[in-house]
């Protein structure tokens, strides 16, 4: 039986659609590292999550995930501010490949739409998410904890673990 947290449909839909993704880890000295992902893929109702990091921008985060396994990832919709944070203590990493291109393309399209709704042109989104496929690392993990972080006093509420 999976112990992965149940993510409410409204928040799961946001994650699946493709919204802003920030990936964080920490080193042995407890110094946190972070970078924005350039793509994401959420499968199996949120039990399997893949985020794509550009290596030249994310050396420390990638190194920290490799060394400590700790990963914290926030999904947030720029247009609605619905936000969810996932945490895990282990993750696997691999080089991105040709097969990942459709995922990255779909993500870019969704982000262009999201960020347009927040009032910015597509040019900004493309520059923000610019990358080279051969420099991408796919970080895959199963969330152990999930939190609703939509701005407000309830931000930080842990999402249930019962399925």
């Amino acid at each position, binding site marked *: 039986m999976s112990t992965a947290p149940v993510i409410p449909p409204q928040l799961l839909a946001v994650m699946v659609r493709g919204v802003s993704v*920030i*990936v*964080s*880890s*920490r080193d042995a*000295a*407890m*110094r*946190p*590292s*972070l*970078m*924005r992902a350039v793509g994401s893929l959420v499968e199996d109702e949120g039990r399997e999550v893949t985020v794509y990091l550009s290596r*030249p*921008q994310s050396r420390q985060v990638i190194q920290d995930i490799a060394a*400590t396994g*700790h*990963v*914290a*990832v*926030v999904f*947030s919709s720029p*247009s*609605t*501010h*619905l*936000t969810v*944070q996932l*945490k895990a203590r282990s993750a696997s990493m691999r080089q991105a490949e040709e097969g990942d291109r459709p995922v990255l393309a779909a993500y870019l399209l969704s982000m262009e739409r999201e960020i347009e709704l*927040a*009032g910015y042109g597509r*040019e*900004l989104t493309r*520059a*923000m998410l*610019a990358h080279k496929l051969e420099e991408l690392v796919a970080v895959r993990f199963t969330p152990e904890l999930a*939190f609703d*972080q*939509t*701005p*407000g*006093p*309830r*931000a*930080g509420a842990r999402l249930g673990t019962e399925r």
Partner: protein
Amino acid sequence: MNGLALQDIRACFEGAIPAVVATCSADGVPNVAYISQVFYADERHVALSFQFFNKTRQNILANPRATALLLHPVTVRFYRLHIRYLRTETEGPLFEGMKAQLAGIASHTGMQDVFRLLGSDVYEVEQVEALEGEPLPEPPPRAGLLGAVRRASERLARCASLDEALNAVLASLNDLLAVRHAMVLMHDAALQRLYTVASSGYATSGVGSEIGIGQGVIGVAARERTPVRIGHVTNAALYTQAMRSSFDAHVPDFEPVLEIPYPGLPQPHSQLAVPIVNGGRLLGVLFVESEVDLRFSYEDEDALVAIAGHLGAAIELLQAATDSLEATASAPPTAAPAAPLPPLPVRHYAANDSIFLGDTYLIKGVAGAILWKLLGDHVRQGRTEFTNRELRLDLALRLPDVADNLEARLLLLQRRLVEQGAGLRIEKTGRGRFRLVVERAVQLVPA
């Protein structure tokens, strides 16, 4: 710190694109959070808004190391700040500056009471890291701002009346800084309100419209005596919308009940309100706005603060100069043969000194009291020539708490009368003197 200075990336602190901060708990669990505000405190420090007792808060108290990710709003280059938590400030200039900016953001959707800053978390910046990427071109550097401030100051220095000074400021903003929408509001200390005395670039002048201290961007700039600058109003509004759904039951909508509509843009994207302060006293607010995102930069703020400083000094000097002058020779009265129109009924409501010309609302408060006195003297004694000094003495007897800044009240009245075009006018006849021009018989109706 390495080669890159915090100063070099001030544009990243505009708040247009939310920043994120990573922290780590004492037991080694990382956490990511969006931060409403990363505030440039000085060349070595930033302050992060502390609004809720959340995980970030717990973490930094246990482990002061944090990393923030910022995005340049124009070039879209990423920057990482490696920072160390020092302390939390809950009062003082830094806190007030942040609070005002945050309150300004919140006020657009009536979130003043909810979107509150509990503290300014001050961090030392250990390193500024510029990330690789494919940034967009840098905007061309803006030239000539200092020259613009100088020319605005020269124009102000030539002014001999409040009317001229306000026109000089609005014209300078338009001509020298390409600001297309601007207004000046004066402070009514007794009523804790601001009233518009001059504006440019709006469909209606809005002269006489009022805003409460603390209400909106303008009111907050006044209350906190600090500039409030918002570069992306729609984004800010969206953010507060998300907050709002949690609070709808507790937050009453603010109701701007105004006799004269506020002239502002229906959909502003950028706003900047700068308090006009002189000798530590709040005199008013200089406000500019734009339909363009990120229209006003730190440099614009610097320029406006300088211009507002000059304006504040000019207002006080002109007031003092007017007060010191005795009315000596009275100007010849204008022969104004009244057109054969039926008398204009002028109603006065004593409760708030509001005046109606016919059925049309004109003005209230001190300006209303002034007009009622002038018209009374005119009807009873046939007077048309008046001095600021006698008006001040009269008001001091009847309205001892509110007789501040008479020049601004007279200007407000003068402009409202011109806009109404009902045959009543006030004309300056010299420094500290003016004439009431009554082109049509009036019938005074105390209500």
